[in-house]
């Protein structure tokens, strides 16, 4: 894996480094709203270590993946889930 590459978030290119979590790469790029819950509340990474499940995103078509527990990969497609729509491609 190259040490620096790009992932996309909501169609936008985001700089990433091998070994970073998806949450870290997004926060570094200034993207703090990772999800919108069923009540319309914007949510971001909170606990950073995988127990709160607030940072869950659709990653490469699979819904509800914890951004803080998932390492970036070149070309990874991350989408912001809104409500129950997990942006699933399954």
């Amino acid at each position, binding site marked *: 894996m190259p040490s620096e590459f790009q992932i996309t978030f909501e169609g936008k290119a985001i700089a990433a480094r091998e070994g970073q979590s998806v949450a870290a790469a997004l926060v570094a790029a200034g993207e703090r709203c990772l999800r919108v819950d069923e009540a319309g509340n914007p949510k971001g990474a909170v606990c950073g270590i995988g127990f709160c499940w607030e940072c869950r995103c659709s990653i490469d078509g699979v819904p509800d993946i914890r951004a803080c527990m998932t390492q970036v990969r070149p070309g990874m497609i991350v989408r912001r889930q809104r409500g129950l729509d997990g942006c*699933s491609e399954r």
Partner: protein
Amino acid sequence: MTKDKFDVLIIGAGAYGLSCAWWMAKRRAGARILVVDEGEFASGASGRNGAGFRMQWGLDLNIRLCQESTRFFETAAEQLDYPRGIELKQGGYLVLAHSEKALATLKGSLEVQHRYGVPSELLNPDDCVKMVPALGRNRLVGGTFCGKDGTISPFLLLDSLLKACRREKVDVRYGTRVEKLERNGGGFRAHVNTGSIEADKILLCTDWAVPELLASLGLNLPVKSLPKEAIVTVPCTPRVKPILISLEHHISVNQVSRGSIVFVVSRAREGKEIASTPDFLAFAAPKIIDLLPGVADVPVLRTWGGVSSLTPDMQPILGETEIEGLYVAVSSFRGLMTSPAVGRIMSALILENDTNDPVLTKLSPRRFRTGELIVEPLLNQE
């Protein structure tokens, strides 16, 4: 030691206990009624089930009990003066057959349902899959659907009944365990962990645990515990609109309004434990995927257990025992959905000695002595 005296002592504050209490209080203003429960609010089977009610049964008794109860649920908010409502949802029940034998059972039951005006219909496999696209076609031969069947919130039903009972001055006490019963003149004395209670009449609504208390009075009833386990998934997009029952898989499926899907999976088991068992998930997962391939990738969030009751003919037991003034109401795993009607019938029986309802004749505890057992054909234990 505290001593209390009541007209009627109801043991068990689940759907049956609270419903019977409320109906009795309404029937006779000023009646001294006490309901006791060893647990907390909604900690028993009434708080652990699939939350469904259906009129799709094969036996007239069950159809009638559920029909009356459905009408009650439709107006419960009003009748119980509970503006919040009990989250009534009438999205229908789809009962599935995966064999010709099961389909024949469904067709026979449909006939009986139609005699009582239940708006149910027969569906072919295509119709079933159109209604629930996530459904698997493997071995599916058809189903029946009734649009008036549905779900409620058991917690809100119990909460509305509890509040209505207290408004009618019914005493409801949790954390109160009855250790044993004894006769006391023309009435009874119940020894509880907090003292003793005297009552003219007693109604046992402890479901599978009824035999334990009957034993202290030298009586017996063939009620066994029926432990069951359930699964709830994470919230996901709507994919199961009606409640599903599969006769072959012994599974019921209910996608609740929050998006989570509840699966109740029955299997032959003994015991009274509500703890989740180690082999349950491995047992249930393949069956669930076979029934609903569309949920294979949905994560399981939680499992839990509950204990219902099993009788030799799998029918409720409602009525007076051999001891005058001692009554039982055993649900046979359909307590929630029959509780309004059972409440009315038992209140008439206990307060007015009204034995006219055919339900009481057919479902009496006496039938086990006379051998007049009855058959409900449409069963998956759900």
